């Protein structure tokens, strides 16, 4: 188990990239900024698993993003949030 790179409450940006392999980041979340809602465990990285490169494990985090940041003309409140699981190699610290 490697040490988590991010801590709960930290602001992070989800990478905006589209590798030509199976990956578990939906387009709507790419490039978005949120905060770490919780630090989860280590799980097999989908991009490398699918190529048969063994089962390299990566940390998963739950990232909380305001709905009003995600969708233009969102119908709801400032308090509405979307929470999503993101592997560590998709995250960078954000201002």
């Amino acid at each position, binding site marked *: 188990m490697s040490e988590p790179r991010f801590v709960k409450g930290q602001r992070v940006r989800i990478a905006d990239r589209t590798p030509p392999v199976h990956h*578990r*980041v939906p387009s709507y979340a790419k490039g978005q900024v949120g905060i770490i809602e919780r630090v989860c*465990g280590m*799980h097999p990285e989908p991009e490398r698993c699918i190529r048969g490169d063994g089962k390299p494990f990566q940390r*998963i985090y739950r990232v909380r993003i305001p709905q009003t940041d*995600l969708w233009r003309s*969102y119908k*709801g409140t400032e308090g509405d949030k979307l929470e999503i*699981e993101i592997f560590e190699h998709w995250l960078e610290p954000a201002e």
Partner: protein
Amino acid sequence: MSDHDDHDHSRTFQPDHPEPTSDAALVGLALREILIEDGHYTAEEEQAVIARMQGASPENGGKIVARAWTDPEYRQRLLENGAESIRELGFELEPYEFTVMENTDDVHNVIVCTLCSCYPRALLGMSPAWYKSNSYRSRVVREPRTVLSEFGVNLTDDVDVRVHDSTAELRYMVLPQRPEGTDAWSEENLAALITRDSLIGTQRDLVPG
């Protein structure tokens, strides 16, 4: 279907199953047979997993919720470490993490998997068709309040919506609020109140009958 002379399909193919006709179904069957022949798992293990999946129903989730309603310390353990705390009740969700999201007066939670249809089957049984539909998966992230109102959940602006997109290795269940007037109810009677949709978050209020 087993008129080949070098092997038979009886270990993976049950006589009451329909014959696989599509290429994808045949490839799936062939893959399972290779995995079994190579010793990755046994046909008996495969059958046991299928039986467990088919035997699961939202009653399992209901038992977990009823325990959390009646035992505050269990509720705390459930919210902090879902996977471990359901083992206390004999449930297992390996290799997934299990995350329980608690509804409160100020927060309503709803679960979706936008990429496919991830669902805690061992605890809720097979997912409903709408959960797997493109419409639910694409709309509930973008316009959760509208989708919820179509399910009969009309939220006022003082309740925040939290949409949980189950995109990787976590599985989710909503912990609904315990209805008023059920203080004296037994755990068993409480469990019977809990519906599948309340565990997904497309229902908010449970009504004591």
